[in-house]
């Protein structure tokens, strides 16, 4: 078995399509073939919010089945706070019982002596997330954006979307980047470092007000601090203290100073998508992104990402695919590949610890 267990892309130029899933009430705000920028709103959805349930029968002192007959407004009507919704005359018509709306909103339901008023809906905007053109859209389902771009799918991300100029602070992979190197040029840009993220560096990024941050790795003890950060943060390798792999660093170096999109909307409970760095490229040859899922068998000569320490996140080349299982230092016998790493070292990595790079 040489099948891959996980799959990601790190590629210089490719044509990518990104689906933006819409809530059930999502309405596209663009047209087919329309060019869009990363932070353009492609759809809006109005989410139900702030309901009020009025017990007509109690307020009008009647049976539930008669309550609706006293209503002077109907389902679907817009109503204002304080507006009278129902009136019942009692005491031979000398007194009136009134039901008034407690909020501005719309009557959405009336049944069994109860009226439901829905307040102002919460507006949710769905962004394009990548610059490109709209190639498909479906009300209440999805909008598809297509673009030519360099694509780097990374290990982990948090904090949503960002669009800005890439400012790479390192020229080679390392274990430290001095936080004192921040300057005013970094304000409003997406900063990338080829070393692990530290608390000091993160505080520097917050202070200088970057738009986004890309690092090779970080210790998980920084997570509580990250939850308070207002910009997206991505890790190319994973958790721990490992430098950025050369292939990703080279790609970031190539596009240093360019506008990039950082999509860190990582699904919390289900892996629908990987966090990714998208760098739009207007020229050059591109190949269509392979999303078919066909095959994905490891082959000799192919690049693959190693997912085990000490090479966590490193990209190597498959040298050979031994027919037999091999013994790991842990004592496990596993099928796998011999990998040539950028250091020149050749190591055996089980297929389960390798990520297919498409």
């Amino acid at each position: 078995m040489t099948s891959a267990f996980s799959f990601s892309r790190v590629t210089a130029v490719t044509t990518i399509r990104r689906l933006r899933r819409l809530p059930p009430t999502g309405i596209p705000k663009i047209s087919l073939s329309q060019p869009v920028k990363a932070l353009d709103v492609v759809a809006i959805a109005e989410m139900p919010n702030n309901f009020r349930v009025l017990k007509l029968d109690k307020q009008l002192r009647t049976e539930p089945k008669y309550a609706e007959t006293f209503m002077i407004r109907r389902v679907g009507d817009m109503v204002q706070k304080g507006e009278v919704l129902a009136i019942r005359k009692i005491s031979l018509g000398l007194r009136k019982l009134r039901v008034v709306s407690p909020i501005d909103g719309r009557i959405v339901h009336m049944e069994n002596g109860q009226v439901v008023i829905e307040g102002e809906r919460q507006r949710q905007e769905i962004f394009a997330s990548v610059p490109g053109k709209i190639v498909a859209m479906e009300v209440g389902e999805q909008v598809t954006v297509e673009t030519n771009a360099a694509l780097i799918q990374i290990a982990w991300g948090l904090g949503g979307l960002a669009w800005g100029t890439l400012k790479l602070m390192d020229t080679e992979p390392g274990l430290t980047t001095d936080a004192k190197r921040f300057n005013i040029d970094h304000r409003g840009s997406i900063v990338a470092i080829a070393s692990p993220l530290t608390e000091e560096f993160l505080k520097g990024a917050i202070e200088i007000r970057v738009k986004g941050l890309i690092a090779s790795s970080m210790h998980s003890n920084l997570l509580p601090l990250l939850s308070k950060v207002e910009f997206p943060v991505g890790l190319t390798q994973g958790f721990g203290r490992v430098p950025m792999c050369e292939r990703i660093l080279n790609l970031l170096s190539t596009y240093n100073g360019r506008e990039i999109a950082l999509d860190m909307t990582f699904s919390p409970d289900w892996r629908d998508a990987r966090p990714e760095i998208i760098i739009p490229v207007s020229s050059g040859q591109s190949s269509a992104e392979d999303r078919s899922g066909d095959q994905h068998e490891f082959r000799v000569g192919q690049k693959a990402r190693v997912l085990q320490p000490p090479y966590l996140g490193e990209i190597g080349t498959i040298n050979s695919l031994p027919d037999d299982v091999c013994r790991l230092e842990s004592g496990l016998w596993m099928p796998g590949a011999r990998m040539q790493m950028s250091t020149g070292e050749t190591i055996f990595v089980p297929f389960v610890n390798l990520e297919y790079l498409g």
Partner: protein
Amino acid sequence: MALLSSLLGETEEASKGPEVAGAILAVDIGSVYTRAVLLDIVDGMYHFVARGEAPTTATPPWNNVLEGVGRAVQEITTATGRQILDKEGELIMPESDAFLGVSCFVATASAGKPVRAVLVGLMPDVSLSSGKRAAESSYLLLADTISLADRRSPEKQIEALLKARPDVILIVGGTDGGAVQSIRKQIDTIALACELMDYDRRPTILYAGNRDLREEIGTRLVDDVGVNFVAADNVRPTLESEQLNSAQTQLAALYHRQKLRSGGFADIGSWSRGGIYPTAHSLSRAVRILSELDNQSILGIDLGSSSTTIAAHLKGTNYLNVMGSLGMGHGAKGLLASKPKIETFTRWLTYEPDSVDDVLDYVWNKWLFPQIVPATQSSLEMEMAMAREIIRNAVLSARASWRGVRPRGPLPAFDTILLTGSTLTRPPHYGWSVLVMLDALLPFGVTRLVADPHGLAAVLGGVAPFSPRAVVQVLDTGAFIDLCTVISVSGRARQGEVVLRGKLKPIGAGQAEVFEVKYGSIVRLPLAYGEQAELSLQARHVDINVGGNRRSLKIKVTGGEVGVVLDARGRPWRFPRDAAQRHSMNQAWQQSLTQEELS
């Protein structure tokens, strides 16, 4: 066979129809692995013939489990020469001859999105806790809970129901013949919330509350609101009794319906007479069958990537608990939910990590890359430390539902512990499986440990309604691997003091071996796989037996992969504070159980 059929007592559609007589293909779609198993009749008896395995393809870029199933089945075809899928990837059924097609197909699954659920009940400590236990039998994500203790206004509860976007609302509450007004009020809220949802996105309502209201609520919700309504027996018919089976079966059926909407599951479901069953449900059924057949109490533990399942059969009652967000991969983050102290993990290591961060980083990386296996000795120890803590937490949580068992304290006596899930069943050495179980569960007395490396337990649970004969015969022909019989002592003595003296005499030929065991140690007695021996033990300062004579024991034992194991660490035991001492203790236990050859 009649015995098994009757003890199964299945009423599901799946079991209707003639018993299968021919090759059976069963697939189990897990979060990481898709496994296929072929059972066939050889010399008049069902045998486990072949298995195939492939990565599960439920996630991008595949988004279709059919691909992984196809690859796993192809491995069986390669091994046996039997063509099971045609060129279009369709199942060949019925079987034409010994090399073409199968007579029956069974599918179980734990992969994919869990069913989103909202639990509605009355009292948190009564109906709601029973409802939670019923929900724990399947892969459910409890998005919200509404009860009488809920201080939110009805409006806020409606908003919460709309935000939760549930696939199912499980309503429990009220004893049979008890008060009805509170439930009616809750139904009002649910009905209103459902009215406000888009018609085609309204959840299924599963009602398992006061029986007297079943018809009234069904009529109201179906006729007035237009939702799909399913009724089950009241999970809490009286304050003192709990019956979860009916609700659990209905949840399993809902899981099947939900799965059919995911990529590839509809095809798989159409091949199977019984649809797609939750793996946990099938494991529970297998544990029950094994218990009834051998008249034993059995604890089944499935340590998966996304979830951990505890299926127990104790004092004639079946219990099933799925810890939906606690596992070795996708569920690794669940281990950190209670913010455990770092010592919880490091106490199991033979080395001091470079930094405490390394330990937590390991867990987070397991969550990021759920399929990875430990490549180094240090990562293997971390992996096994995680496994111990997950199992410990899962069993602790599950035992809250075991009747007559204290929530904490010694594990009730189980005759057999069945281990499934690749971490436990495919370690570098089976001694690791034994050590992890002993550390996590601290069993006392005599326990048999059995591993299920081929994932057959869930498969057999799935096959049972169609062919009880296949289940019995496959179990008879050795479906599982015997790890060892372990005898654990309780009590305290001085470290290094001899607390056990004994003799192991092989039945038939062979010399009796006399031995002594020191307090604080684990000893592995050599007894080849399947070989039987008479074991006599005399204890000093410690107890050795659950009932009867607590200081001596004479039993017949059968050798497993790890021989026979004596755990003389006492119950309870504590780690020394000194790190070096702790490391050397862990090293000694590891060595005694994981050495390559029997001494």
